[in-house]
């Protein structure tokens, strides 16, 4: 087979004025014609940087790209040296030879231009179509990427389409000029599982039909299993393992790959403790922080879990939700316009037992976050009742409710956005205690902060650090410590582990499991990831379009789903 892209000893370093950061350390790989290569690694491993340097998309004044060889076989059979290519030849390389799909379909499209025109633009710039024939070509492209209603979509603006449709348009755009290499940078990360599955299938089919090669970048090993011919695993800027898909999955050589493969909670079995990378890579410090020795009998059987849940559910529920409806109103442009009402959740009822973890599953837009926010009164409900230990919370005035806030705590998804960047970690944990006047004096509060830092596995010197000095997982630990500082009884985790890398996700999940028994917490665990649900939850609730689809124990729902929608969700999870 012919080599399409040949990269030998590529290094990329950033210079930010004061220091040099090397993001990619002398990596080498080849992509053959028509081959699907997947580049896998956690955030910060340099995988996107490597891909961007192939397109020469990096800011050249601030980065240094060195490579022994970085050549690309163009369509005309010419061998291009990408690094030496003059600036005026770059547009020819981008688009015509190499197409690119980005992660965020919501922001990669221009909101004021019709989708069809955006796709046509690339064709016109490269002079591949005339203005008369371009529309037919675009419609044809739309059909190829699986957009059925292509005429309507041609005339739609991006906000009128769903995330999956937008991503398909991005694919059509990247494919418009018939490139021989497609670079897809986490194209499905922002999408729901069911959509993700369809997009992956579409991508694979397109590559096979057109004989196009693809460099697919992902942080998740499992989703590339069906897709890839070859897998490259990146860790801290280096490629630690490369081989065919079967080889990597069946006989991983590098401990990092082994770790990545086992960090993800399994979908079919419930584990006591999740393995983390430190179990595979001998990092003594990390081992000390989270003493997670894997027990011999790590699998919780169905009988065991069901009997444990029975004892949990034998007592009076701590929280009762009855017929809760929450809606958003959108005012019109003029005051005489009628307000539009959108019901985000409708008529939801359930109970939460003390010490229980209730999973809340659904696709984006299903109202699961709205429900979480309604319970802790970040949103006001329209009707229905939220009863906490026989106290009705739903209609309580805000200043009276403030006392109860310490009993119901919420942890958010984005660890980067949920901490105040100008507040030290210690002060952030201290603040809720000051507000609620917990503990007798300042000294006691500070001592409590240190004990909390210890119980979430952070070193004591974290007290005086600012959030930007921590990694994503550490920040999420600070958020957890902050919520726990008020001794809450109910903890709502709103996609709290979704933004984290698999390894960090496993660590945080283990931590939450540990804290749950230590502090006797009841949790509502909002997530879109069913394997996480299997690991941490006792019961699970499936939501669709703001309505309750199904509720039951994890075993009931995930082994014998009653509704079709749950079955669809389960089938979409990549294995």
């Amino acid at each position, binding site marked *: 087979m012919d080599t399409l892209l040949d990269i030998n000893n590529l290094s990329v370093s950033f210079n930010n004025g004061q220091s040099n950061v090397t*993001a990619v350390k002398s990596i080498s790989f080849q992509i053959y014609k028509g081959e699907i290569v997947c580049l896998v690694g956690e955030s910060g491993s340099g995988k996107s940087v490597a891909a961007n340097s192939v397109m020469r998309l990096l800011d050249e004044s601030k980065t240094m790209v060195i490579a022994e060889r970085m050549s690309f076989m163009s369509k005309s059979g010419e061998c291009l040296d990408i690094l030496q290519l003059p600036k005026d030849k770059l547009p020819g390389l981008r688009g015509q030879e190499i197409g690119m799909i980005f992660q965020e379909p919501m922001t990669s499209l221009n909101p004021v231009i019709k989708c069809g025109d955006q796709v046509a633009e690339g064709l016109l710039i490269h002079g591949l179509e005339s203005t008369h024939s371009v529309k037919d070509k675009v419609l044809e492209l739309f059909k190829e990427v699986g957009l059925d209603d292509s005429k309507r979509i041609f005339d739609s603006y991006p906000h009128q389409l769903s995330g999956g449709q937008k991503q398909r348009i991005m694919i059509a755009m990247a494919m418009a000029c018939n490139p021989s290499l497609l670079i897809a940078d986490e194209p499905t990360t922002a999408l729901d599982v069911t959509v993700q599955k369809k997009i992956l299938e579409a991508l694979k089919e397109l590559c096979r039909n057109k004989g196009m090669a693809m460099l697919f970048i992902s942080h998740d090993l499992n989703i590339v299993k069906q897709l890839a011919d070859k897998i490259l695993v990146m860790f801290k800027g280096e490629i630690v393992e490369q081989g065919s898909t079967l080889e990597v999955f069946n006989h991983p050589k590098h401990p990092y790959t082994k770790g990545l493969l086992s960090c993800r909670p399994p979908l079919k079995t419930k584990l006591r403790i999740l393995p983390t990378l430190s179990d595979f890579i001998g990092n003594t410090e990390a081992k000390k922080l989270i003493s997670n020795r894997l027990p011999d009998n790590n699998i919780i059987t169905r009988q065991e879990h069901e009997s444990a849940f029975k004892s949990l559910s034998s007592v009076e529920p701590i929280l009762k939700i009855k017929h809760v409806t929450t809606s958003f109103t959108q005012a019109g442009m003029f005051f005489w316009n009628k307000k539009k009402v959108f019901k985000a959740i409708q008529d939801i009822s359930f109970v939460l037992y003390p010490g229980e973890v209730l999973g809340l599953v659904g696709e984006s837009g299903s109202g699961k976050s709205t429900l979480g926010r309604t319970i802790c009164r970040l949103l006001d409900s329209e009707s229905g009742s939220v009863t906490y230990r026989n106290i009705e919370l739903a209609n309580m005035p805000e200043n009276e409710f*403030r006392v109860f806030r310490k009993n119901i705590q919420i942890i*958010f998804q984005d660890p980067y*956005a949920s901490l*105040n960047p*100008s507040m030290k970690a210690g002060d952030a944990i201290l*603040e809720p205690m000051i*507000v609620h006047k917990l503990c007798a004096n300042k000294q006691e509060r500070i001592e409590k902060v240190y004990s909390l830092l210890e119980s979430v596995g952070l070193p004591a010197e974290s007290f005086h650090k600012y959030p930007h000095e921590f990694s994503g997982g550490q920040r999420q630990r600070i958020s957890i410590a902050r919520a726990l500082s008020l001794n809450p009884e109910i903890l709502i985790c709103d996609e709290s582990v979704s933004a984290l890398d698999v390894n960090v996700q496993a660590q945080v999940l283990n931590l939450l499991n540990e804290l749950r028994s230590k502090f006797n917490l009841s949790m509502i665990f909002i997530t879109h990831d069913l394997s996480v649900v299997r690991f941490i939850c006792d019961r699970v609730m499936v939501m669709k379009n703001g309505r309750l689809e199904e509720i039951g124990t994890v075993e009931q729902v995930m082994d014998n789903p009653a509704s079709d929608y749950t079955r669809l969700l389960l089938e979409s999870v990549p294995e």
Partner: protein
Amino acid sequence: MNKQAITFKSMPFNMKVAVGFISLVLLFAIAGRFIANDVPIYYSHKDWKGFPAMNKTSFLAFKQKNEDVEPDFQILPLIPYSATSIDYKHSLSKPGQDVGSRHLLGTDTFNRDVLAGIIYGSRTALLIGILSNILAVIFGLFLGSLSGYYSSVGVVTGRQNFIFLLMIEILLGYGLLYNPYVSVYIYNTQVRLLLFFILTILSVYMLLRPQRKNFRLDIDLLITKSVEIFQSVPGLLLLLGISAVTGTMDVVKLTLLVSLLRWPGITRLVRGEVIKVRQSQFIESAKSLGVTDWRVIAKHILPNITRQIIVAFAFGVASSILLEASLSFLGLGLPPDQVTWGMLLSQSRTNPAAWWLAIFPGLMISLLILACYTVGNYLNNRTGETSSKEEII
């Protein structure tokens, strides 16, 4: 976020020059009377001694007793004229015209030294520039953060609070500023203006305390509309009107009036920035922890917009200095016995031949404004730089 301290060494050259010039003007403002004065800084003669530059009385008594006697020992200031000392021999003399006179930059129509005027005028310029902006920032931060924080939600407040606010704004506003009967009791206009500022802040603060009969007040609408009303009136016209009612100007009154023109802009800026920060998740997180609104604003929102406020302050100082100068130029500013740069400049209008009256004060005004802009730009760029750095890595 870059926590690296701003040091003089790390600044670019133009910033060093700007800081140097501002320090020079600051030195003039603080120690002007020791640099330019018609009395010595220190003198001693037998039993007499003292610091006439700070307190003239003993020196005047000494002069009266011993006429035409120079003291035994005296330290004279660099420039032997104060801004108000009148040199009868030299009227409108060119710089370096008369040999023996020490008018380095010439004299003005009232026979006063221009250099001394520039040195004394820097105090007025800085005082009005900085003080008026401090006042405007306090006012703007308060109203802007309330407006931004409660925009689209409104604030639950008691009816009597709202009525109190209206009373303050209409009755007291009218009464304090225009009503002759009130001015009998509170004679001092500065006190009246300050009282109006303080009462407004107090009454808005009262709005945030719910009482028995509550309703949801769209405080954002209230504040943005008053900002719009203020900004729809031309600034100079407003000052003209108010100064016509309140009589002769002095530094404090002028400061208050200039800040009256500055607050709407700062309120707008703060409102926008607060709305931007308010959408961050850490605000929602703080709310879910039960942190009170006041604490959220003070501890979580304001520390994240300090950079923008500082930049706005630097630019604001520049525009306030310009405003003061143009007021003095139009003759609406301070009375002629108080030397300001704008007043020196305005004399060149009637004496077009006296180029030194136009060049030197004009240069000072332009250079100071340029320096303020340089500082503002520098601070602005530093914030921009750090955020783009974070994006790369």
